[in-house]
């Protein structure tokens, strides 16, 4: 309900535009109240950011030395060893000396797997869901409302309920430990993606499409020449959201893709965590790995942040 009303507003704000300066009014006085309000907001930001700093500080430390000075606000025994270990640039002997595991870590392989899974999922889901959303928003056909409302009803089903039978399906198809097995369930649609795009397509001006109809354009040409270009902003937003979700997904890939050659980063981190090479986990290595695993999303956010933030009114349904 809230979601529907937010639609038109969002359509305009997702356009990448220079930051709009609010019309300058008289500067609010800095009262005691405002001072404390700002202090509270700064405290929130600190709580948000400190764990990130702690990842960074730990990742530049030597694991074996961390125990001697666990409270140090700066890296203990500064080294790039953790990164070298994680990226497979260190020899087993070097890794052991700094508290890592002597076994090789296929970090590059996990990174590649995450890239493949997230990219293919995003392309498929966004393409097929925009096609479906177009049919729901703009075309007249029998059964449209029935099909759409059953899509929406699927939003209510808790994922674990469908996960068990989906695992059986993927297993029976012989797709365990394949990319296809990890990707298939979300490749063709998610109810959220269809719902999200349909809302936007409903808002695209009908006149342009009617002009195309007069020019004799059929539904397929209209989709590619009118809807896709005019809907590019929400489509890009959905693509980013899908990419982030897919990159961060843990539950499904750890069920169907535990084996090395298809293991994605989140699953690899879970495995990494359960290894205790020298009595305790290799904290520096683990923190270096988490940072590298989060990096692609953080970079994406750096460039596309405004789009992601503006889409928030919507992603609540996820």
């Amino acid at each position, binding site marked *: *309900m*809230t979601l529907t*009303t*937010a639609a038109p507003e969002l359509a305009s704000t997702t356009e990448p535009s220079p930051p709009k300066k*609010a019309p300058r009014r008289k500067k609010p006085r800095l009262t005691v*109240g405002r001072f404390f*309000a*700002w202090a509270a*907001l700064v405290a*929130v*930001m600190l*709580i*948000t950011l400190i*764990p990130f700093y*702690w990842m960074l500080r730990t990742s530049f430390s030597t694991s074996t030395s961390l125990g001697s000075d666990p*409270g140090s606000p700066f890296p203990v025994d500064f080294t790039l060893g953790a990164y070298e270990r994680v990226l497979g640039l260190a020899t087993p002997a070097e890794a052991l000396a700094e508290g890592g595991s002597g076994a090789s870590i296929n970090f590059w392989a996990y990174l590649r797997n995450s890239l493949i899974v997230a990219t293919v999922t995003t392309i498929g889901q966004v393409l*097929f869901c925009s*096609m*479906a959303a177009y*049919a*729901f928003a703009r*075309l*007249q*056909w*029998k059964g*449209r409302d029935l*099909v759409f409302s059953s*899509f929406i009803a*699927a939003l209510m*089903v*808790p994922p*674990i309920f*469908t996960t*068990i*039978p989906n*695992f*059986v*399906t993927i297993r029976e198809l012989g797709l365990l430990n394949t990319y296809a097995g990890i990707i298939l*369930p979300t490749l*063709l*649609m998610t*109810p959220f993606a269809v719902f999200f795009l349909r809302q936007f397509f409903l808002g695209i001006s009908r006149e342009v499409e009617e002009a195309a109809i007069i020019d004799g354009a059929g*539904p397929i040409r209209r*989709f590619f020449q009118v809807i896709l270009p005019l809907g590019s902003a929400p489509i890009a937003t959905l693509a980013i959201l899908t990419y982030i979700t897919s990159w*961060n*997904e*843990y*539950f499904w890939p750890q069920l169907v893709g535990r084996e090395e050659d298809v293991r994605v980063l*989140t699953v690899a*981190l879970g495995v990494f*965590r359960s290894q205790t090479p020298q009595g*305790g986990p290799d904290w520096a290595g683990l*923190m270096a790995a*988490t940072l590298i695993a989060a990096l692609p999303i*953080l970079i994406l*956010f750096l460039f596309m942040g405004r789009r992601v*933030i503006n889409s*928030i*009114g919507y992603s*609540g349904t996820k």
Partner: protein
Amino acid sequence: MTAPTTTRPKAGRAQPSGLVPPRKPLITLKRREALAAWGFVLPALLGFLAFFVWPALSGLYYSFTDFDLLTAPEFIGLDNYTRLAADPLFWNAIGTTSYYVAINIGLQTVLALGIAVLMHRLTQSMVIRGIVMLPYLIANVIAALVWFYMFDFQFGIVNEVINAIGLDRVAFFGESDWAIPTVALINVWRHMGYTALLIFAGLQTIPKEVYEAGAIDGGSELRMFRSITLPLLRPVLAMVLVVTVTGSFQLFDTIAVTTQGGPVNSTRVINYYIFDMAFNRFDFGYGSAMALALFVLLAAFTFIQLRLTRANKSDLG
């Protein structure tokens, strides 16, 4: 009497075609459009049928069977459900999950509302919004691992600080009483900013004039929060609650990489128990029955929430 009435609409519909010359091109155009529409929906529909409808139906069926994945499911009627009713671990899982949801949602909603109102009254800065949202972008697994380290009994910075101010170290993940609140705190950290932005989006729909009028009447910030913000925000808050509560029940990742249900089942939440039952003990039938129970529970919960909060009715206008 009945015969004419039933035929009348038919005759009415036939009438135009009798008076107006048949418009053949229109019909074929409509046909073409319908055909194209099915073509557009087809891939998504296939995905929907294969990975949402089919699993929902087979999950329902599995819940009445004994199924270990290796042999065909064997129908056992309501056995799984009678077992569920008498399974102390199932009720423990429901209790643990509810406890987690209560702490997580309670804390998160209050904090998020606070952050949203602060941002709304202080700043429109995209950078601040970006920072606040940051934890939501990293995987659950990563958030869990970072805090697992920071909460470590021996090496964690949190315990270092606790120690420095003269208190006893806390085994955050190792003590039954602490484990669920700790997991809840981690997820509050990850979600509070995101939830704040959801509420913030709602705040921006409140017309500025209402606040200006409030200020002219000499209302304090606190008074305006109680008399303007809260009532006008109610529908948004209600929707946010439905979404976050439903999401909160799905807790799995954090447990899987930290406590794995322990210590002594104190963090064996429902999703983890179902996962364990199905994928570690290969009891797919019983796992499905519990998943269905969760589904029913969630649906009932959502329904009650929507009713209680009158989510679809706005006080505005």
